[in-house]
């Protein structure tokens, strides 16, 4: 039973990222079954959008578009935050973490690979949110702003997922990270301007919001939905991308740190 030498460098890394990412998505993503996916990823977000749009109509402070865009972008973040946590916390719970860590697989490729299906899912959820809003709430952005809007959503989902991975890395060290994920998710509601303009928040909260994913993305999406050009929103999109990169780097560094620490303190297998 001799076999060819293992794949070398780039190819193996790419396969771990793409093929491995997809398999582990099915292994680790709690909402993979339709019975869970439909209520959490599709129905819940619709109720959220409807609630805030009708609330907005009732208090008459902003138009529908403000709430539709804020919530339809924000719902894309749910899978990012929770899936980032699941990517590691579930490994611990299923007691597969040591099998993963005993493998020579490239760690950044492993995690970026896990993020890719999550990002795709975020895009679907957001598109669904916009689609339902178009149907039920007569939300009608200009056709020309659809592509830029999709780009902004993509960037926002990426940064939310990176933030989720950062939280996930904490799961290497701390138990009960799902609690942290819940907190992080509600934190975004308050600080990221989903249903509130920055001007409505105290300065300190505004600054916290600016360090979180999604804040700049939602602002950019609102500008574009209101007819602004992609160029006009480039600054905001750039900042959102920077935030994504920062969280991704933090996630990988923390993972590396806690992996080493876990091998010293023998804590990797405690579920």
């Amino acid at each position, binding site marked *: *039973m*001799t*076999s*060819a030498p*293992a*794949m*070398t460098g780039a190819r*193996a890394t790419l*396969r*771990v990222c793409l*093929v*491995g990412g997809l*398999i*582990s998505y*099915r*292994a*680790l993503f709690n909402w*993979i079954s339709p019975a869970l996916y439909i209520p959490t990823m599709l129905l819940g977000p619709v109720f959220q959008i409807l609630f805030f749009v009708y609330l907005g109509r009732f208090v008459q402070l902003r138009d529908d578009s403000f709430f539709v865009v804020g919530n339809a972008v924000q719902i894309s973040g749910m899978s990012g935050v929770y899936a980032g946590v699941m990517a590691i916390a579930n490994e611990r719970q*299923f*007691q*597969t973490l*040591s*099998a*993963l*860590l*005993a*493998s*020579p*697989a490239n760690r950044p490729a*492993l995690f970026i690979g896990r993020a890719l299906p999550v990002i795709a899912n975020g895009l679907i959820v957001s598109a669904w949110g916009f689609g339902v809003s178009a149907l039920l709430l007569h939300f009608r952005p200009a056709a020309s702003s659809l592509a830029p809007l999709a780009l902004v959503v993509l960037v926002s989902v990426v940064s939310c997922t990176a933030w989720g991975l950062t939280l996930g890395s904490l799961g290497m060290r701390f138990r009960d990270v799902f609690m942290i994920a819940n907190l992080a998710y509600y934190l975004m509601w308050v600080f990221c301007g989903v249903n509130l303009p920055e001007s409505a928040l105290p300065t300190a909260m505004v600054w916290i919001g600016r360090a979180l994913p999604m804040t700049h993305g939602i602002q950019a999406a609102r500008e574009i939905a209101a007819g602004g050009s992609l160029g006009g929103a480039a600054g905001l999109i750039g900042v959102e991308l920077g935030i994504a990169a920062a969280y991704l780097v933090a996630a990988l560094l923390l993972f590396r740190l806690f992996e*080493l620490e876990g*091998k*010293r*303190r*023998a804590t*990797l297998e405690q579920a």
Partner: protein
Amino acid sequence: MTAPVIEVEGLRRTYRVSTGAVRRRTLEVEAVRGISFSVGEGELFGLLGPNGAGKTTTIKMLITLLVPTSGTARVLGFDVVRQSREVRKRIGYVFGGDRGLYDRLSGLDNLRYFAELYGVPPREQKRRIFELLDLVGLNGREGERVEGYSRGMRQRLHVARGLLHDPPVVFLDEPTIGVDPVGARELRATMAALVSAGKTVLLTTHYMFEADALCNRIAVIAKGQIVAEGSPSALKAMVTDGVVVELEAYDPPPGGADALRRVPGVARVTVEERDQAQLFVVQAAAGFEGTPELIAALGDARLTRVATREPTLEDAYVALVEGASG
């Protein structure tokens, strides 16, 4: 002779554990206390010892999942701490137990995932996976989710996973646990085949006949230290170069074992409880003729069986481990 494949020098590992719900204190558990051994290419080396002796801890250090407190270990010349990725690429491992698989995935997808993690080339994957499914007897069940697998099926899947990338060095920690007798026999044949294919294997098991049948060399570890090392026959000879007399007795007199020990030619006596009876295992020098004296030493006890046999690895093991705890 070529350089050893596994080299362990003065390896130690302590764990910190905290006890007490109210006033928490931290204790240090010395799981492995300075062990050294080496395993040559193509050898099947057994690590035997009682529960908690430090076998799994040792293997975890060798497969880079645990950093040693002190000492060094090298696999194929690579240091397990400083060159851990090089080590990981070249080793496979199988742990006993039903955990450590992705329950939501099929057996096949579990194998496909680990094939990716170990960089098995895509063109090879399918052939390799089905070869292994065949080897561990899971053919036809590979499409089912692992959550529906029995314990032994999971263990078989573990074995397949450990061998996916055809590693030159394999660590097996109780690989046959939970596997039915026929399956375990097949697994032993697999282990033997690995060695004849030139692979180096480190095995732990609580089944003495398994170790006796498979291992070229064995280290007995107790309380974190190696108490004996050698080939199975050398270990047997270390404890007794003679014969073993077994006496099964009902109502033996108190101090029966001591009386047996005083019989000339007797080297060691161990006692096993058997329902209401006691089984005295007497190890005696070669050419021992004192069985009548042994029977006499037990006085009025009702003897149900007296038998003389060759010493087994289990005799040697029990003596070594009891010697270490005495």
